């Protein structure tokens, strides 16, 4: 399967980030905030709080910038793994970053776009079932399902991001697939990972 990760120029950005280059960190934010937010919303099962969780993931990335591991030259897998971990311990993480979160201004009131409202309502209906299915999994199984079936990373990328073998990714997916399949379908997620592994 083709990788969904776009890596052009990203390794250079990461290197700059490790030299405390904030502009480079901003560029990484711009690249990945959409994917991270979507991942956070699916982990929580709601769009509410997903922006706070997204902020925590990027704050954690800055704090851990010297030890971020790129996969295929991209930091996205690391961000997604961190998002899943933070979502599992959301309350605890929110406490750790309480002061920083408090400094984030409340969303500005803006005219609601009917399309956005409808999309949010649809997600809220299905997202909780998915989040519940994910939270019922063992931590590492949840990571594998999140990376392979939801974020659509290849097995090899997921294995590298999680520091486990390709075979372990496969077996964990086999074990978890049935239990989350219904919830994924309900959430409108049909994964291309159903075929043979890459």
């Amino acid at each position, binding site marked *: 399967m083709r990788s969904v990760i776009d890596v052009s120029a990203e390794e250079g950005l990461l290197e700059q980030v490790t030299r405390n280059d*904030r502009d480079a960190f901003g560029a990484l934010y711009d690249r990945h905030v959409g994917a991270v937010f*979507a991942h956070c919303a699916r982990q929580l099962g709601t769009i509410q709080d997903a922006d706070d969780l997204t902020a925590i993931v990027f704050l954690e990335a800055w704090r*851990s910038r010297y030890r971020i591991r790129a996969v295929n030259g991209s930091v996205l897998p690391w961000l997604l793994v961190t998002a899943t971990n933070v979502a599992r311990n959301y309350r605890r993480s929110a406490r750790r970053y309480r002061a920083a979160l408090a*400094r*984030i*201004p409340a*969303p500005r009131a803006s005219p609601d776009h009917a399309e956005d409202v409808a999309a949010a309502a649809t997600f809220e209906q299905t997202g909780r079932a998915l989040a519940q299915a994910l939270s019922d999994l063992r931590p590492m199984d949840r990571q594998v399902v999140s990376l392979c079936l939801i974020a659509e990373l290849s097995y090899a990328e997921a294995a590298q991001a999680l520091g486990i073998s390709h075979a372990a990714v496969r077996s964990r997916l086999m074990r978890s697939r049935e239990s989350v399949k219904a919830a994924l379908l309900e959430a409108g997620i049909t994964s291309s990972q159903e075929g043979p592994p890459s």
Partner: protein
Amino acid sequence: MTSTGPSAPRMSADRTRQLRAAIMAETRISNGRGRRPLAVAAVATTSVLVVGGTAAAWVAVSRPDDPNNAYCSSEASTDRDVWALHGVGTAVNADTGKQDRLNALEVCAGLWRAGVVHEPGARPSPSGTYRVPGLVACVVDDQLVIYPGGPGVCGQLKVPAAEPN
């Protein structure tokens, strides 16, 4: 579909910019406070002569990412599904946002004593408590993990021992 496909949840452009500004402001506050990965330091490398050949014994220490949150593992394993089952941490002061210091060895010993963390088939003593094995602190995936066993456990698992808190 992908995480950013048409049906993916999206943050509004305005909120994305707002969040960016806030995060960048935080990076200015905390710039330079990050910890370089040099905390993991091999402090001794010794060659030990054994019958029939040589083997290298090594000792490494590391600082966990967060010394106030730890995991009490029931067996010596680096499988996250095993060691991450029982997490412990200290409370955060609601006024200051600061977290109290954790004595992970003591807290995990308490979980063993209560039978929350136990070996398969463990039975309580007549007083209702369980046997507490020797405990040792290692660092796995940057997390503080308390394993049953002696000082050699971290080395056997090929993970660094935790720096004293």
